């Protein structure tokens, strides 16, 4: 089972770019990499998903090297409202009864200061 490792916490200031790296050495061939954001007392919210190389949406970018053993979530120009816990999730592949357990990392608490 692919487990993930992330920093427990990170600090940043408003307007900076923040990069959060996740290690997943045992990622399987059909695993996707997904990042979620969670605010206190709320369920996690999907941010971005990728399989390899780079993915970008209106919120973030996801960089995945060729070996896929790690990934980096990049948040451009963070604001105070980006203060949250960010989870790296590796897995998926639930098709037709086949099961791959989905494992959340412990999450990274990003604290954005003025």
């Amino acid at each position, binding site marked *: 089972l692919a487990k993930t490792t992330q920093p427990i916490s990170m600090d940043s200031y408003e307007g900076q770019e923040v990069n959060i790296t996740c290690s997943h050495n045992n990622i399987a061939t059909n695993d996707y990499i*997904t990042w*979620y954001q969670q605010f206190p007392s709320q*369920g*996690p919210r*999907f941010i971005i998903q990728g399989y390899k190389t780079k993915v970008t949406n209106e919120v973030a970018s996801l960089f995945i090297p060729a070996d896929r053993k790690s990934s980096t979530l990049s948040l451009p120009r963070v604001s105070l409202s980006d203060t949250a816990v960010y989870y790296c999730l590796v897995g998926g*592949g639930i098709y037709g009864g086949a099961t791959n357990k989905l494992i*959340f990392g412990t999450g990274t608490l990003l604290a954005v200061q003025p």
Partner: protein
Amino acid sequence: DVKVTQSSRYLVKRTGEKVFLECVQDMDHENMFWYRQDPGLGLRLIYFSYDVKMKEKGDIPEGYSVSREKKERFSLILESASTNQTSMYLCASSGSTDTQYFGPGTRLTVL
């Protein structure tokens, strides 16, 4: 927008009671999940279901059971609640893309 709803935001029960947590999704998703979240432990998967009447154990199924009689509804059952089941319970659903959509969570306290 995908909507996942959970029957209660806050719930207080006594030790030994039978507890039902209900989750409903409105996107015709095949897959549904139950997690619990505790400080310092992140999200841990209890059970998931990939079809009606189908279920698979997650990482911590002990003390829990689930029911999926209809595609849109996934219930988590605590047969005899214990204090160590005090936690935040999160339900999620996903379709073919593996992206999971979460409900707001139920904070359960067992006294």
